[in-house]
């Protein structure tokens, strides 16, 4: 637990690998960067002291150090990737066919594996608590690991001095010694500046540096990631994000979901237009249109009226008093925007739902006879219909959507998808007859009827499906993504390059370091050294690799 005082006089924090000022490798800490004697220096984080490697006092420190580890971070990422992949093996719960029961569906469809899948909660993976926890841990890991590396690196680069320790110089990858009394330092400095290096000087020792900011790229990038994570987390706040679905029949007025009953929408008309292949204006599509067996839709549109509720406070279920706000059209890509940030998107439709049915009463054996017609409004059928000749037709039973269950009609939903009626027909002075009529069915209950209630026509209406959305998190996510990209660009397109030059009695030493693109650094060095009397340094890594390759090939140079 002690600070390290270097021979150059600089006091370094505990755990420092290379002196912040002069770069001297501290022997006792070389293992932290896996440095070995006789090898080049590992310049990771510039040899700065990562506090996490040395502080182990309180629980807080232990938690901190856990998340600071890159190994832990990578492990979390691997876990997330594996879990996400497993989540795609069987369908997620929300994509099961409507009406299926997840408790049995997985086992029935996929057997044992399906059952295990369901039991372990993979059927709802992406909103399960442990998946969210993994994502959260990744977020924490990113924050802590970044702080733990950025701050020491920033401080070290700020405190670095031009005068470097002998061992630092010698153990740089780019290093060269020149024995010459005739060295032109003025020209050297001029050359460095013309290559846009910042030149620092201390007792004749030079440090030329450029593009230090590119070292911050990864940290900027992580700020972007965190912003995206926070943005997506805000989707849990109802005030920030909402995603609902609304079916509205033509002529119907419905509460807009998510507005707390404040707004209502009336569907005046749903329009589905298809491309007319004959039309002049579509001549450019003619060929493709002719290749299609079915008409190609051109426009899906809901003509709607938006209402605002005026009887406040709102009591759910109470008949609302509505005030028209405006008329609006929802088309694909042209949604209706409400004042409170809610947007209605044209998302789906159902055509031709039955709205009314017209019947005529005629003799059972002769369809050409006509004792009168009547029309039943399927949304609100009357109890009785009286024909002109005084015949009373009473609806004994109405089935909006009927199915035959063992020969007995049964109602399965409230929507008029397959409407049917039991009529009691009473002609003046005659006995009451019972008949059953629907779409494509007409049953004489007793078999002794004289009359038949025949379907002559039906009216239909369309249903529009609207997505009701509110999303204030998108701008935050977009900003996060932009920051992310800035970070990537910053770290990718610029390289942090440093060149050290030390005057020696017999000549001069040169060393160089960069975080990437060594070729360009060497080119920079060669160009700046031109005409200064200093020889080009060598790439010690490359030399070593070459020697090793030769050894492998069995060629001896000695």
């Amino acid at each position, binding site marked *: 637990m002690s600070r390290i005082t270097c021979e150059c006089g600089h006091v370094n924090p505990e755990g420092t690998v290379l002196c912040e000022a002069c770069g001297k490798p501290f022997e006792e800490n070389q293992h932290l960067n896996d440095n070995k004697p006789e090898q080049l220096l590992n310049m990771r984080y510039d040899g700065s002291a990562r*506090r996490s490697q040395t502080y182990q006092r309180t629980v807080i420190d232990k938690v901190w150090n856990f998340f600071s580890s890159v190994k832990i971070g990578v492990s979390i990422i691997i876990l997330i990737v594996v879990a996400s992949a497993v989540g795609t093996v069987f369908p997620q719960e929300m994509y099961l066919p409507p009406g299926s029961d997840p408790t049995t569906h997985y086992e029935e469809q996929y057997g044992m594996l399906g059952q295990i899948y369901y039991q372990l909660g993979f059927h709802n993976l992406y909103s399960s608590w442990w998946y969210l926890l993994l994502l959260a841990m990744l977020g924490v890991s990113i924050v802590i690991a970044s702080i733990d590396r950025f701050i020491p690196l920033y401080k070290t680069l700020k405190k670095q001095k031009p005068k470097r320790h002998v061992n630092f110089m010698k153990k740089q990858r780019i290093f060269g010694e020149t024995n010459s009394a005739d060295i032109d330092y003025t020209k050297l400095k001029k050359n460095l500046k013309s290559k846009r290096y910042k030149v620092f000087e201390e007792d004749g020792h030079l440090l030329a540096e450029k593009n230090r900011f590119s070292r911050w790229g990864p940290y900027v990038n992580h700020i972007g990631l965190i912003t995206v994570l926070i943005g997506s987390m805000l989707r849990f706040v109802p005030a920030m994000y909402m995603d609902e679905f609304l079916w509205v029949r033509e002529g119907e007025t419905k509460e807009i979901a998510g507005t707390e009953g404040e707004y209502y929408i009336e569907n005046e008309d749903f329009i589905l237009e298809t491309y007319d292949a004959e039309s002049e204006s579509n001549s450019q599509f003619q060929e493709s249109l002719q290749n299609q067996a079915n008409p190609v839709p051109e426009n899906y549109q809901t003509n709607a009226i938006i209402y605002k509720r005026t009887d406040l406070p709102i009591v759910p279920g109470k008949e609302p008093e509505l005030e028209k706000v405006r008329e609006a059209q929802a088309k694909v890509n042209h949604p209706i925007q409400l004042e409170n940030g809610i947007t209605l998107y044209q998302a789906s439709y159902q055509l031709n739902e039955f709205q009314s049915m017209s019947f005529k009463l005629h003799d059972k054996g002769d369809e050409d006879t006509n004792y009168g017609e009547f029309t039943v409004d399927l949304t609100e059928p009357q109890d009785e219909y009286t024909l002109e000749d005084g015949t009373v037709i009473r609806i004994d039973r109405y089935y909006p959507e009927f199915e035959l269950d063992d020969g007995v009609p049964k109602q399965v939903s409230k929507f008029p998808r397959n409407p049917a009626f039991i009529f009691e027909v009473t002609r003046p002075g005659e006995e009451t007859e019972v008949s059953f009529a629907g779409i494509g069915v007409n049953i004489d209950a007793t078999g002794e009827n004289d009359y038949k209630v025949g379907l002559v026509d039906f009216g239909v209406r369309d249903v529009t499906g609207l997505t009701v959305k509110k999303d204030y998190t998108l701008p935050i996510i977009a900003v996060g993504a932009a920051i992310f990209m800035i970070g990537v660009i910053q770290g990718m397109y610029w390289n942090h390059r440093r060149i050290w030059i030390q005057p020696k009695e017999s000549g001069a030493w040169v060393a160089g370091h960069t975080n990437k693109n060594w070729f360009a650094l060497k080119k920079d060095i060669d160009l700046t050294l031109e005409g200064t009397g200093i020889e080009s340094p060598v790439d010690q890594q490359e030399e070593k690799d070459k020697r090793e390759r030769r050894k492998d090939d069995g060629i001896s140079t000695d």
Partner: protein
Amino acid sequence: MSEKTVNKKKKRLLFRTVLLLIMLSLITFAVVSALQGDNETVAVGETAPNFSLKKFGSDETVELKDFRGKGVMINFWATYCEPCKDEMPYMEELYPEYKEKGIEILAVNLDTTDIVVRQFMEEYQLTFPILQDKDGQVMNLYGIKPIPATFFINPDGTVEEKVIGPLTLSKLEGHLQDIAPSS
């Protein structure tokens, strides 16, 4: 150790603690809201949300909060729901007795056409009030998915019990006894 070092370490610990706490609270918030999103229904013990619905066959509207002091059974049903047909006679059977004891039955109907409800009421001879929720607003408010679904509300307005699926006569009677006002 110099005083400066000690101070620095104290500051560092404080910084780490604060940051970890902030992140922990954010995570807790996210996980809790994610888990709540699935079942945002009315839970047992909570106050039953107020609503106002038209009573079938009249112009009268019924508001839940007017029943404070009485036990209330809210039953969500529809004419096309087969199990509802089984439990309706039980409700009808017990209604007169428990109305005496200060319990009201509100049967919230989810059909859209009046005629089917009227025919159903005639067939089953129902005498307790039927409320109409044609738009399903109250159904959404109570987070009802499968029907029948029944809520038993205490005289103080809190939910005593919630039953998804049909009730038997004895179960129904037991729940009604639970919400009877003590007098």
